[in-house]
């Protein structure tokens, strides 16, 4: 085996190994600690897990392409909440009153369009001002959340459309609608990142921006497209989730950006850009959801879950750093 091959294999497969470890741990620990008599790795439980991964997972796919591109988007949680409000509220608008159930596609499209526009706006600002994406989206995170509160104060926005609920709760080939959306988005973004010129250019820009500029790649438009993609996906995530729940609190989606980034980083995407994969992110999303569910299964409360996930994230990043060091001769910083 070539030197470095082992650490490379470890790095690429790490997230899946971690998932297997989690499954074993929770299955065994569940036997002793769980109050329910159902096994953790129950088939239905796993299907539910996939469905529950969807809201974070769909956004995480967009975050992968944005982070590979060398940017970050902190505003996704707020975009998610805005899109949810648009979706639910627009169904009650008088102008759409005559549409009957045709209001559903109109409301969905409206929500998706708003999400895409907000994302594109982030991208445009990053492109035209040259301000770091972290700062720009930190600003828009606060701004978008402000808009959410302006809309209905502290009150939730609710509207249940039973046709929409039926669609959301439908199952096809045993998988819930939300799961299908997650799988489809994963597939599409995987295709974009590995097969298209846009995707490969996104890697090049994240890896060596100057080289990309020198090669005549138009950096700005690529970044804007990626921000538009993540905006769209944040809205899609909201559409998928709120179709079923029918009520959005103004605080919904808070900290989503952090969960999403955690999943992406766990999945092996470099924070500085240039490297990362959609499949890794998918693994990261599943791993986090497993952890939340598994800890719940053995009786831990939410605060413990957060503590554990935080510790694991740091441990993983430390491990990755150790694996990346090319041996002892590395420059000390």
């Amino acid at each position, binding site marked *: 085996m070539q030197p470095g091959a082992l650490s490379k294999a470890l790095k690429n497969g790490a997230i899946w190994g971690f998932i297997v470890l989690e499954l074993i741990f929770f299955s065994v620990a569940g036997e002793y600690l769980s109050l329910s008599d159902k096994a953790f790795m129950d088939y239905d439980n796993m299907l539910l897990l996939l469905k529950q991964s969807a809201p974070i997972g769909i956004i995480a796919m967009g975050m992968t392409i944005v982070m590979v591109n060398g940017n970050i988007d902190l505003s996704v949680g707020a975009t998610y909440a805005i899109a949810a409000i648009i979706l639910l509220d627009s169904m009650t608008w008088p102008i759409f009153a005559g549409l009957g159930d045709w209001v559903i596609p109109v409301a969905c499209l409206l929500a998706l369009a708003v999400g895409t526009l907000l994302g594109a706006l982030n991208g445009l600002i990053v492109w035209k001002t040259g301000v770091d994406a972290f700062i720009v989206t930190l600003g828009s995170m606060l701004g978008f959340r402000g808009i959410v509160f302006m809309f209905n104060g502290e009150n939730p926005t609710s509207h249940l459309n039973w046709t929409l609920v039926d669609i959301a709760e439908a199952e096809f080939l045993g998988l819930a609608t939300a799961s299908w959306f997650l799988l489809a988005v994963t597939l599409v973004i995987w295709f974009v990142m590995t097969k298209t*010129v846009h995707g490969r250019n996104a890697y090049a820009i994240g890896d060596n921006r100057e080289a990309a500029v020198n090669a005549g790649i138009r950096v700005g438009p690529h970044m804007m497209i990626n921000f538009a993609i993540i905006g769209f996906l944040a809205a899609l995530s909201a559409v998928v989730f709120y179709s079923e729940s029918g009520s959005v609190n103004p605080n919904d989606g808070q900290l989503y950006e952090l969960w999403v980034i955690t999943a992406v980083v766990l999945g092996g995407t470099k924070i500085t850009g240039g490297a990362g994969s959609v499949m890794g992110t998918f693994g990261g999303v599943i791993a986090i959801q497993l952890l939340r569910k598994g800890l719940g299964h053995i009786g831990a409360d939410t605060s413990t879950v957060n503590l554990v996930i935080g510790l694991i994230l740091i441990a993983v990043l430390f491990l990755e750093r150790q694996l990346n060091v090319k041996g002892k001769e590395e420059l000390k910083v």
Partner: protein
Amino acid sequence: MTDAKPVLHLDDIVKTFPGVRALDGVSFSVMPGEVHALMGENGAGKSTLMKVLGGIYQPDGGAIYMGDHKVVMAGPLEAKAKGIVFIHQELSLAEELTVAENIYLGELPRKSFGRVDWATLAERTNAILKKLNVGFDAKTRVGDLSIANQQMVEIARALTVDAKAVIFDEPTASLTDAEKSVLFDVIADLKSEGVGIIYISHRMEEIFKITDRISILRDGQYQGTVATADTDEEAVTQMMIGRTLDLSRNASHHELGDVALEVRGLSCGKLYQDVSFEVRRGEVVGFYGLVGAGRTEIAETLFGLRDPSAGKILLDGEEVRIHSPADAIARGISLVPEDRKGQGLVLGMNCRDNMTLPQVDDLKAGPFVAEGAEIAIFDQYRDRLDIRTPGWKQQVGNLSGGNQQKIVIGKWLSMHPNVLIVDEPTRGIDVGSKSEIHKLLRELAAQGYAVMVISSEMPEVLHVSDRIVAMYSGRIMRTFTSEEVSEDNLIQAISGIKSNEAA
């Protein structure tokens, strides 16, 4: 060739930056099938001119013609579309991507729906790589290649498009002789296809071997164009620096003291192996080799930035282990780093604060920084090193390269070192300041410091060193005294040729 239209003609190009006239009326033309050398000292305006050609800067005056047409380069993409290809000196590669993706960066072949046509890409890339006779294929990750091979990837870009003009910026800086001859074959091929080539290099022997004409810049001004066959090195040098260069060897030998630093069998993984040398007080030892030969890495090890995997370091005959820069400084080792602006200075801070940075912890009056002591230190070294600045309040970023370098040297001298390691001391410094820095290094040795100079410029090592250590791919090939060294045997040593066989 005389009646042919030039592929590229620059007419009276002017480019100004705030306070500087970077290019002042530069005109020259490149004929089809010609290799045209562009020469000039660092800072003469070569890279600015290339950026104007590449559309990265817009000229403030003058025009660019291709054939009969006046062209405006709005950006790198447009320059490329017009058939102007740049081979950059600083590797402009994305390390995580494959060789193929890097070679076709920005113009990946497409299929429907914006998909990358991987089959075509691999096929074209492998055809180019075959021509270049390199030992890797299209799917190799660029980050896994050696620096020389990465340079070959960069060069491969010249062969991707139907180029009208190719600009090589210092392409041989990290190449060995075998790869160089492949490069020269590539250039000869391009030439026979009627491509105009601009070749930027500091290496006279290459210039005289492969170019047809030479254009020279000095301080942003066009000095003229000469046919290579009608001129010689001395005349070209004179045009470059405006006077004849003092190429004399270092003559003044002073008393050498005890061995200050000795290194025995030092290795650091793959970076360098089994390195042994010693530096005496009062001696300047030059380290010469190609980029990636391991010189800087040795300096970093001595300064505690890397852990050696084997071997010993002895200071004044006593074996030491240096764990960190703080450790190194405490033991009297100072490193003037290669990247002055990135590693040596805090550009936004003033001269005094930069100078006293390593010892500001010790300069205290109660809980406060002792400003008076700091100014005293600054004044002392300003006088001693002849640093020209309006005052200590001046921001270091506003000083010239030479004065910046003196601040860095002064900073380390104020720590009273025994061993002073200087990495590329005159990179990016104008000719006048260069010889001042050289003189300074000689003087420091005469005052009893042990000085290690790492340099990629042959005249510099020849000029300042008492002894020269020649390195090739992580090993010391040979150590020369200033009497036995010649340009020929030095070049052979750093190219990995052991005996006296000619290259």
